[in-house]
Each structure stands twice: as structure tokens, then as C-alpha cells.
């Protein structure tokens, strides 16, 4: 069924179709309309779930952890400060191997207060043991939630998943979305089959004290293996989803006109769609540029990134966040997996923080800079902040 939905309504529909039994949620801009939409689904009898209106995001995740550990599918959604408040229990959720699915609407972290899009919130949780999938349009928001339940709940994975959308650009923007039939989604995901649960018939303790010689380290190692294994399951599930629902998602990296590209822009989220537009117009002028949009940041698809690098002479990594280390997050990880595999220059373009607009004009200038570096064979610098006030080069 075709509907006109915002990104947040698409997330709510994705959750509704996946039939979680417990939802625990707390409002925060720009996520709020997800949990409002779900509340009205439940209030109208269109969705059969228990809705816990918690007093904080920390409690939202804690309640999801407890409910999921009791044996039901759960869902929640948050943004920025809400996600940061959850930090402790995010690590709890993954360590407890609970396949919770959560929508995160990317928003900048204060101070100063900003409700607009920026990926620091999710990047700061990259080591929390969650699978992270970044989306580009409302259809992908909805579809990714369905796929995420299927991937996360496999007993060889059992890792929670964040389905991530950009604030406002997706969350509050309406698009045509194909909403799949309930029956088809039910058949695709199947009933929730927990690997373990709290049950008075079979009493067990979950999360007890463990000594250094106990299997703490082995538990972490198994999580690392599961994250690696998730690459195979993601590929399988995405292919199955494409076939069942008539879509064409690439599992890890969506490439656009990368085939003979002199330079490829590597991006996350909605920057991809703007970049594709710029690629089209520059291609028509004869510039050989392409764009690659990473979908899964966790697990990080090292092999696919290395294959991408083999196709081109230069990669420009765009980050909508900054890490106060060796460049921003996507850049640092891209460079690290390319080390010893390629000599092509890789440059970091940091832009759009706090929701600052990333326009086609700016991306065009970035592409021209990338082409110049591709020709020179060496980057002028590793990290470039693009679009700062008063910086004439990029405006």
C-alpha cells in the first residue's frame, strides 16, 4: 500500500509491522512523532503491544532489556541526549545478547542546544556492541526496521540494532512509501523465538558476577564473532528482502556511478541523495565522480570498503560528526581498513554539524577538490572542515 509518510511515521509503521509486544519510550525532539504515532496505533487497536511511558530514555532501554529478557520482542526510539543517557544500558543490552531494535533520529549534542541533524550521537555509541544501519529515505527507514528484527533475532547473532535516520531531513519530511502487507511481513520475520528467557519453570540468573578467570572475556569474544557473522546474515536477509518486497538494497555500500570514477565520495545517510544529484550534473559536464553510501557502520564492512578503493584514485570521506582523534569517525575507520591495501589518497571532509545545510553547491566544490587530489596523487591535508562561517572556499 502506497502512503505518504514522514521518516518518523515510516519508523512507526516499521515497528507496527514487526509486532513488538512491549514498547518503552520517552519523548525527545526530533524522535517524538515516532512514539506518538505508535501510541495512536495502540490506542486505536491497530497494534497489539504494551506501551510503557517511562520517565527517561535510560528507563526506556532498561525496560526493553527486562521485557526482551522475559521473552518478547521490544522496540524503542530516541535521539541525541536520550541516546547518550542510555549509554550504560546500551552496553547492557548488547552484552546480554538481546536483539532489541531501536530507531535513532540523529541529532546534534549540546551545548549549545541544537535539535538538528548531526551524527555524533550514534557515532559516540559505535563501541556499544549494537549493529548500526544508516538510512537515506523513508522507505529505507521502514524496511530497515523489519530487516533488523530478522537479522538481530537469529541465534547466531543476538545483537541489538539501531536503525538510524537524519533529523528533519527524513524525520519530518514526507515521501511516498510502500507499506508492505502485514501478512508478508509476518511470514518474513516469523514469530519471536527467544534463545533464553526469565522463566520460573526453568530458573536461571542473567548477568551475574564473574571473576577474571571466568568467561567474561569469552563472552566479549563471542560478541565479536557474532558481529562478524552478522555480515553474512545481513547479506542474506537483504537479498531475501529485496526479492520478497521488490526492492534493491545493497547490503553494505550503495554505489552510484562509481565504475570509472576518478574520485568517490564516501558518505552516510541523506548526504548520499544530495551527492547523487551532484554526481549526475557533474558527470554531464564530463567529471568522472561517483558516490558510495555506507549503510552498515556496525558491523563495518572492511572488505567492501577495500573493494571500493580498488575502483578509484581518491576517496573523499564526508563526516557529519567529529571525533577528537585522527579525524572523524567514518574517515578514521575507512583509513584504518585501507592501510596496507591501497596507496590512494583519502581525505576527510567534516561538514553539516548541528544541522548546517549540506548543499549541492558545497558538495560540488568538495568533488572538485577531490578530483584535484586524485590528479596530484596526494591529499593537501588529512582533514578539512567544510562550510565554516567566513570560509570563502566552500560557500
Amino acid at each position, binding site marked *: 500500500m502506497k502512503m505518504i509518510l514522514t521518516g518518523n511515521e515510516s519508523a512507526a509503521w516499521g515497528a507496527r509491522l514487526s509486532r513488538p*509486544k*512491549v514498547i*518503552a519510550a520517552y519523548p525527545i525532539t526530533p524522535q517524538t512523532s515516532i512514539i506518538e504515532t505508535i501510541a495512536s496505533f495502540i490506542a486505536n487497536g491497530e497494534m497489539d*503491544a*504494551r506501551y*510503557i*511511558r*517511562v*520517565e*527517561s530514555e*535510560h*528507563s*526506556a532501554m*532498561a*525496560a*526493553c*532489556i*527486562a*521485557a*526482551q*529478557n*522475559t*521473552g*518478547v520482542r*521490544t522496540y524503542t526510539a530516541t535521539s541525541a541526549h536520550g541516546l547518550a543517557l542510555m549509554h*550504560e*544500558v546500551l552496553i*547492557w543490552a548488547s552484552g546480554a545478547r538481546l536483539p532489541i531494535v531501536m530507531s535513532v533520529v540523529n541529532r546534534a549534542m549540546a551545548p549549545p542546544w541544537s535539535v538538528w541533524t548531526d551524527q555524533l550521537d550514534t557515532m559516540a555509541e559505535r563501541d556499544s556492541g549494537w549493529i548500526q544501519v544508516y538510512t537515506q529515505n523513508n522507505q529505507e527507514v521502514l524496511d530497515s526496521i523489519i530487516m533488523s528484527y530478522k537479522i538481530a533475532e537469529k541465534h547466531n547473532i543476538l545483537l541489538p540494532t539501531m536503525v538510524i535516520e537524519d533529523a528533519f531531513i527524513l524525520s519530518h519530511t514526507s515521501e511516498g512509501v510502500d507499506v508492505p502487507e502485514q501478512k508478508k511481513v509476518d511470514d518474513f520475520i516469523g514469530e519471536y523465538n527467544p534463545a533464553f528467557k*526469565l*522463566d*520460573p519453570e*526453568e*530458573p*536461571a*540468573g*542473567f*548477568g*551475574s*558476577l*564473574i*571473576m577474571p578467570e*571466568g*568467561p567474561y572475556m569469552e563472552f566479549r569474544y563471542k560478541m565479536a564473532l557474532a558481529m562478524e557473522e552478522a555480515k553474512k546474515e545481513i547479506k542474506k536477509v537483504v537479498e531475501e528482502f529485496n526479492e520478497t518486497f521488490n526492492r534493491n538494497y545493497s547490503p553494505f555500500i550503495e554505489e552510484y556511478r562509481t565504475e570509472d570514477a576518478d574520485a568517490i565520495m564516501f558518505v552516510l545517510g541523506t548526504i548520499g541523495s544530495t551527492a547523487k544529484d551532484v554526481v549526475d550534473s557533474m558527470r554531464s559536464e564530463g567529471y568522472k565522480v561517483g558516490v558510495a553510501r555506507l549503510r552498515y557502520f556496525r558491523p563495518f564492512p572492511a572488505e567492501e570498503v577495500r573493494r571500493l578503493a580498488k575502483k578509484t584514485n581518491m576517496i573523499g570521506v564526508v563526516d557529519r560528526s567529529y571525533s577528537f582523534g585522527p579525524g572523524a569517525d567514518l574517515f578514521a575507520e575507512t583509513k584504518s581498513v585501507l592501510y596496507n591495501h591501497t596507496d590512494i589518497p583519502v581525505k576527510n571532509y567534516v561538514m553539516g554539524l548541528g544541522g548546517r545545510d549540506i548543499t549541492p553547491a558545497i558538495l560540488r566544490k568538495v568533488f572538485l577538490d577531490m578530483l584535484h587530489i586524485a590528479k596530484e596523487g596526494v591529499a593537501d591535508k588529512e582533514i578539512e572542515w567544510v562550510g565554516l562561517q567566513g570560509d570563502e572556499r566552500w560557500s
Partner: protein
Amino acid sequence: MKKLTIPEEEHMLSGHTACLGCGATIAMRYVLKALGKNTILSIPACCWAVIPGVYPHRTLDVPLLYTAFEVTGAAISGIREALDAMGKEDVNVVGFAGDGGTADIGLQALSAAMERGHNVFYIMYDNEAYMNTGIQRSGSTPMGAWTTTTPGGKKRMYKWEPKKSVAEIMVAHHIPYVATATIAYPEDMIAKLKRAKEIKGPKFFQILSPCPTGWRHAPDKTVEISRLAVQTNVFPLYEVIDGKYKISIKPKNPKPVKEYLRLQGRFRHLTEEEIEKIQRHVDENWKALLKKERCSQEEE
């Protein structure tokens, strides 16, 4: 022959790792005797996160979810709603948390869970300080006590502020059942738990659980001190059902508070004047409790 009022069934097995004379272990044993096997426990960071034993050992034969420190209220909400969604409404859901995890770091989640009205038990085993981390002051530490973060010193920096009344905070949430209990009165505790079990909605218990290690008393004095806390009116036993107070035990001739204090090293530094001040504080609280009982019953 007198009928046994305390159930014979045991859900606390041997092999726990608590200190000698630990009141919190006795509290757990009675709680499980009263509620039975069809119970799921949620335990945050606290002494009871360690007492069940190191993985893979467990001294309880009911399912147990260990959680982060501040989440007991949220965790029991999640367990309850998941069970109800699966049609398992008969399972008791019990949060079992210390005073730090209840009066301080977990108060927000507790308050919200009670206000939302989930059908759960929240049991605060009150040993009056952060005992698992080694006796640091909590909001539930009583007036005058020594702890490692109120160590006295030259400036006599003890815990001079009154103990926070969590049971009263819970009464203000208008939940159907609030009770205090202590381990020296197991029949009272079990009768209250059984009454509460019949009530659908949030049930809150504050169980005074003496801690020989932190209170600095001999391990064989745990029950005696628990009894003295009631006989001196330091820790009155009462229940509040639908807003109506009912005091469980009214000592005819309350003993002086000094008798309770003198058995515990954490109060050894107190001067006669300071003990007088604590006595006045206890007397005032007791009078206020009598008034609450009278007023709430008069409404009938």
C-alpha cells in the same frame, strides 16, 4: 500445637556469599518463602548482586535478572508487561534493591514505575548505607551515623541529616500497598507479603536489614538490633493500604533510643546531647505516624 505461620518451603539455597549475620539474606529468605516459586526477581547493583554467588553458581531457585544500579523500577515494569503480554499474569515480579539503589540512584525509576501502576513488588532492603561498596552514606543513612564518607574526623563530620523516608514517598504515589517490615518480626513480614500478593498494582516494602559489617555490631546481634529498632520506635512497623495507615506494632513502653544505638559501633561517638537530639527526632516521627494513622482511619 501451634500452627507454623512461616512457610517451610525454601527458595534460598545454601552457599550464599554474604557476611556473617547479614540481615539482607534473612529478608530475601522470608520474601521468597512468602511469595513462592512462581516469582521473578530483578536485582540491581547492591549486596544482593554478589550474595547469590559467582557465575555459574546461584543461591536462589527463582529466575533472577541482574541489572544496572538505577533501573529496578524500569526493569520490573518491563518484566511485568512482557509477562502480561504473554498471558502470564500469575507470576510475581519482585524488584529487590538496597537503600542506595532505592532512595538515591534508583528513586526516579522507582517513582515512575509506582506512578504507572504496574502489578509488581518493590522491596527495598534497607541496610542504611552503600554496604556493597564498603559503607558509604546514602539518603537512607540515619541521623548521627558514622560511614566511610561521613567519617567524623576532627570536624565531627558524621551523617547529621535525618534519614529519608522512602516509604512515605511511596505513600505519596497513592499506590495500593506500602509497608515497613524487619527481619526480627518474620510473621509480620510474611503476613504483609501475603496480603500484598492479593492486591493487583504496585506494592512497596521497606525492610530494615541490619548489617553487622557496616553498623559495626556483632554478627549475633542482627535480630536483636532489628527488634530494638521496633521497640525503640526508631523503625516503626506499619502498613498503608489504599492510603489508610495501620501501625503493626505499638510498643507499650518504648525503650530509649540509646539502647538501640549503644549496640552499634557506627553510633559510638555520639554525645549524650546528640543522643537526646536523636531521641527527640524519633519521638516526633512516632507522634506524626500516630497522627497519620488516626487521620487516615477517621476518614472512614
